[in-house]
């Protein structure tokens, strides 16, 4: 088999506590998105489509549930000889187990995985962004520039720049300075949290960083500034498609709503396929009295009521007379007859009983946690 040229490592570590009830039973990367996907489908599909066949997924929480979802990686065509998807939780070692203390530490703790694979380059990705990107072009640019590290950047509106890590570059794109959340930004190129490192450089800096007691072990805060200070060649790689952080309930809801615009800012129908584990369900059935507008609905659903401005996952039942508006209904949930759901995210395997209602509002999306039942007379059972 060919040697792995570029190994991808997806940082899917956070507990996802900002996603509240949605991450009670599953790790953040496994949170459903867009009618049939999970968040991690995006970086995994990007890897597969970019020709990167070996991917490590670093997660602290619920690694087995994630492993169960990813299986052999065949859904993403990653079940290759010498490739595959590897779940990398912090595991017990000779000297005991450590939590990942930061993004850099997570990679550091898995240096032996990187060494086993022995790639020339390491691509580091974040597990909570929705976007499609061909990493092979970024790798090409990294090689052409003979860079030590290449950082994916993204033009943000000037007024939002102070919320991001901002790269100041020269006219060739070489990074001269990195400012974390600058009050007065000199550029609007924000870091996307996508890095390609030449492996030998990465290894040295991670090892040095691990010895540094005062470091917060973070790529943005520690590793990148240190490399710049040492005069290494760091290059930017500009990306200009749709890119969205879905780390909060509101942003996750908004990203779902983005998909059902008349002209979505983000095209799923193109050649760049997003793969996902397939539930083997039949085409959806839309009943004689159903009304469906401005929505996205997946396989195996039975829609007998009204759905407007919503995203409905596979295996969902929406009863007669029910109204679902401005909401996201995750797989296998049942919305009973005449129930009303508005500005809400209803997680998997829930039941909103006949006549019940779940209503949030813009800026305060209601969330029903996995497996809950919402009764008609007990709105107070809902969890925020």
């Amino acid at each position, binding site marked *: 088999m060919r040697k792995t040229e570029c190994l991808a490592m997806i940082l899917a570590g956070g507990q996802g506590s900002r996603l509240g009830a949605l991450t009670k039973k599953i790790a953040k990367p496994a949170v459903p998105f867009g009618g049939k996907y999970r968040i991690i489908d995006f970086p995994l599909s990007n890897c597969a489509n970019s020709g990167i066949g070996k991917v490590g997924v670093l997660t602290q929480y619920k690694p087995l549930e994630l492993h169960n979802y990813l299986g052999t990686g065949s859904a993403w065509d990653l079940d290759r000889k010498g490739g595959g998807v590897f779940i990398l939780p912090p595991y017990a070692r000779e000297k005991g187990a450590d939590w990942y203390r930061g993004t850099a530490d997570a990679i550091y703790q898995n240096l032996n995985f990187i060494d086993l694979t022995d790639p020339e380059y390491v691509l580091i990705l974040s597990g909570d962004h929705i976007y499609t990107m061909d990493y092979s072009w970024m790798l090409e640019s990294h090689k052409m520039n003979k860079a030590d590290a290449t950082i994916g950047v993204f033009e943000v509106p000037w007024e939002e720049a102070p919320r991001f890590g901002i790269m100041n570059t020269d006219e060739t794109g070489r990074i001269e300075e990195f400012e974390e959340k600058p009050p007065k930004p000199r550029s609007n190129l924000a870091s996307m949290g996508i890095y390609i490192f030449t492996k030998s450089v990465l290894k040295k800096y991670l090892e040095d960083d691990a010895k540094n007691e005062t470091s917060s072990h973070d790529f943005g805060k520690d590793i990148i500034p240190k490399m710049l200070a040492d005069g290494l060649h760091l290059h930017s790689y500009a990306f200009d498609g749709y890119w969205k952080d879905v780390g909060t309930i509101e942003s996750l809801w908004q990203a779902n709503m983005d998909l059902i615009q008349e002209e979505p800012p983000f095209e799923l129908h193109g050649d760049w396929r997003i793969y996902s584990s*397939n539930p083997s369900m039949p*085409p959806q*059935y839309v009943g004689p009295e159903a009304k*469906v507008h*401005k929505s996205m609905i997946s*396989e195996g659903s039975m829609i007998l009521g009204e759905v407007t401005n919503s995203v409905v996952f596979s295996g969902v039942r929406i009863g007669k007379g029910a109204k679902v508006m401005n909401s996201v209904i995750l797989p296998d949930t049942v919305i009973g007859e005449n129930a009303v759901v508005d500005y809400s995210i209803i997680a998997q395997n829930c039941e909103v009983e006949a006549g019940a209602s779940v209503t949030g509002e813009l800026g305060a999306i209601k969330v029903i946690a996995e497996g809950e039942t919402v009764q008609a007379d007990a709105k107070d059972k809902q969890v925020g």
Partner: protein
Amino acid sequence: MKTVMGLINLNEDNSLIRNLADRRAVESIPFAGRYRLIDFALSSMVNSGILNVGIMLPDEERSVLDHLRSGKDWDLARRHDGLYYLPSAKVEKEARQGDLKNFYFNLDFIEHSAQKYVLLTSGSFIYNMDFNTVLRFHQNTGADITMVYHTSQVEGTGKNVVLETAENGLVEDISEKPAIYDGSKTCMAIYLMEKNVFVDLVRSAYEHGGQDFLLDGIIRKADEYTMYACEHDGYVAHVDSEQAYYKANMDILHPDIWEELFMGQHSVYTKVLDGVPVQYKENADVKNSLIANGCIIQGEVENSILFRGVKVGKGVKIRNSIIMQKCDVRDGALIENVICDKNVLITKDKWLKGAPNYPLIVAKNMVI
């Protein structure tokens, strides 16, 4: 079921379904929005725990190879056992017609398999069943050959194999009839027997000049073997004509049949295409229809089946129709009682209308 090997016989007569089986095997005709006919027999085998499945390829093998490929989507891309393609006997310079020669020239593979039993099915029946029930029935009756039948609830014509059985299932008569009546025990072309019985049956029938497995193997030898039949009481359709095809598709619009076939304990598998969920736009108006992923709908759809990746433009009306994969129905078109094969383009404002009992069939890749 690891003691049973599956064999799917792709040899359905295409004379009554020619418009849909032009340059494809009957068994690879698209069905119910995302499947091919063969998916039902194959998925039932996989779900029953059968690990070794031989596909008796028809002469028109291209469509079958292209659909099943490595067998991976049915979990049959295995190192040992898994999916095997058994080519038809055409290169053996054999002039005889019928399916028996295909079995005869593949006896090698069947004899060398590790399993004790052979389960032979057709690829043109729609059902979702657990063959473990059939195996238990077979073992309990001590039959040489066990068949599966369903009880017809409608009258119909077409070639049908009808059984008469004793109360315990013992087959007393088996014959091909030109018509069936309400209550007929209609054979589903599912046969279970020990491998050596199968091999003997095929060898003896073929070497004595036989051509057809059912006629020369089963019916002619009904006296030599103890045959039992067990009933399958779920939904069954046999797609052997264009009318039967249209009717079976429309059956799926009954939510109880949709539930039974697809949403029970055992899924039906098919080639995975990674389509996007259906996008309903502002003016979409869909009633009593089956819509597959990858569709984008801006118009009206009623009593119809839309396969994966169909585009329905603004002002379009589609009624009582079956629109296959990747068809593109442009703004203002009207379509009623039509079967559009794959990849048809209906240009702006065109009208197409068949009769309810005689749907208009538009061939693959046409531009109307």
